């Protein structure tokens, strides 16, 4: 498949700079560990977060960060769309007889981003094996769906921000409010916030579907309608569909304005 061939060539490019790759990975690992330590410190100080234990919060925390890392990994082309437009790489995509959405997805997979994702996966597995109770295969599947769902939501946001780039070539960093902000917000169960925030990030940008809804199921905190909580990640994934259309419409607009 062409997507994998694009990935292969990107990874080959990265491996031309092994030192930069390893040192960045090491740096990111230090960052990931220090931030996690911060979370442990808070639970050391406060014991619980309005009824949520370290296990539940830690799950939310690691899931959202893993999802964000994966979205940056696979959505690099969207993440750096303004650069692609400025450097003319998007023009090159336009002269290739291939779908633009897929070309952008596969544009610049970076092995360092992949490495960060792997680090989070390791953290998540370690965390569950230490703190997890009564973990089942079904819960594992829901967890996997949750991560995919979160990735899809972040990708959707990246696509919309990439779409805005077509109108203003300078990077629209306001969207980082939703990506960086989303990471910070989604690192904790959304129900701890003001109810309007909880609603907005459950029904408009469905971070809730990759956050407290499935986590409540995984942590055995749900008695009725369990299947609804189990399926919630699937609803979150739907978010990316309108985003794809919005991006496509913006890309169409680009060719009528140019650089």
């Amino acid at each position, binding site marked *: 498949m062409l997507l994998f061939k694009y990935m292969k060539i990107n990874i080959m490019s990265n491996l031309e700079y092994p030192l930069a790759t390893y040192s960045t990975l090491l740096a990111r690992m230090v960052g990931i560990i220090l931030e996690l330590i911060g979370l442990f410190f808070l639970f050391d100080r406060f014991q619980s977060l309005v009824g949520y234990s370290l296990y539940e919060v830690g799950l939310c925390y690691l899931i959202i960060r893993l999802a964000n890392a994966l979205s940056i990994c696979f959505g690099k082309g969207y993440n750096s769309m303004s650069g692609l437009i400025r450097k003319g790489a998007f023009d090159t995509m336009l002269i290739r007889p291939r779908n633009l959405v897929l070309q952008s997805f596969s544009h610049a997979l970076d092995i360092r981003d992949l490495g960060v994702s792997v680090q989070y996966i390791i953290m998540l597995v370690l965390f569950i094996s230490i703190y997890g109770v009564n973990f089942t295969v079904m819960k594992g599947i829901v967890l996997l769906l949750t991560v995919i769902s979160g990735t899809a939501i972040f990708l959707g946001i990246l696509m919309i921000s990439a779409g805005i780039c077509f109108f203003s070539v300078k990077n*629209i960093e306001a969207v980082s409010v939703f990506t960086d902000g989303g990471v910070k917000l989604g690192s904790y169960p959304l129900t701890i916030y003001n109810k309007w925030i909880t609603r907005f990030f459950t029904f408009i940008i469905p971070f809730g579907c990759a956050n407290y809804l499935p986590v409540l199921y995984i942590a055995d905190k749900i008695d009725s309608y369990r299947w609804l909580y189990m399926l919630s990640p699937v609803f979150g994934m739907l978010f990316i569909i309108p985003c794809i259309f919005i991006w496509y419409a913006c890309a169409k607009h680009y060719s009528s304005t140019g650089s």
Partner: protein
Amino acid sequence: MKWFKGIFKMTFISELQYRAAAWSGILTNIFIGAIFIMIYSAFYKSSTEVPMNFKDLASYIWLGQGFFLLTSLSFQDWELIDTVRYGSVSYEMVRPYELYGFWFGRLMAQRMAAVALRFLPVLAVAFLIPDPYGLSLPATWTGLILSIISLLLSFILATAISMYVYIFLFRVLAAWGATTILAVISSFFSGGIIPIPLMPDYMYQIVNALPFRYLGDFPFRVYTGGIGTNDAVFGILIQIIWILGLILLGRVLFRIASRKVEIQGG
């Protein structure tokens, strides 16, 4: 001092050019500040025995967001980094001034310009947020003055620390990762990840032994009154000692490192 003003103005203007970036930076700081406040207010509901009251914590967080670029060591001069990386630094070497001092001034001017543009909107919004969630007035006038002095010193301290990035770059051209590690460690030990008073007590000793807390944590707590006048004056003295020590050591290392580049021919 004329060139310092020049660079300050240039950076300020070019930051203004990227209005979208500046606005969204401000917006992100406000948004993230608000998220932190909400998270901590939820945590504070779960425990009453906390070494810092919530009102002070809120001010601490807002100051941290307002002066985000002051404390952030990931804020760097990419142009200068490229000069070192791609070897055109040899041109810099022949200029008729002391390179360490010039780069120091350049980096500090940039940091000040970037902060000057952003801190007011963030703090203004934070002031408008009602107690105990917003930014409160300083505890005492002396506290305010001392915290301003300490914040100004923070610019020098942050620049002195960030100079080590360039020293690193001279030696190991791919020291990019080291830069990031320094930024992360500095953020952690200056209270950027979680406020230092909320850390376990045993951490205080480690934090106190490092210079990073004087970038953010210290001036912020002088402002909220968490650190009293006497301790504040004493702390500022330690801050100055750190600055002098880091600059002296940095200059020596800078000279050794840059000499090496010359021999290699850049």
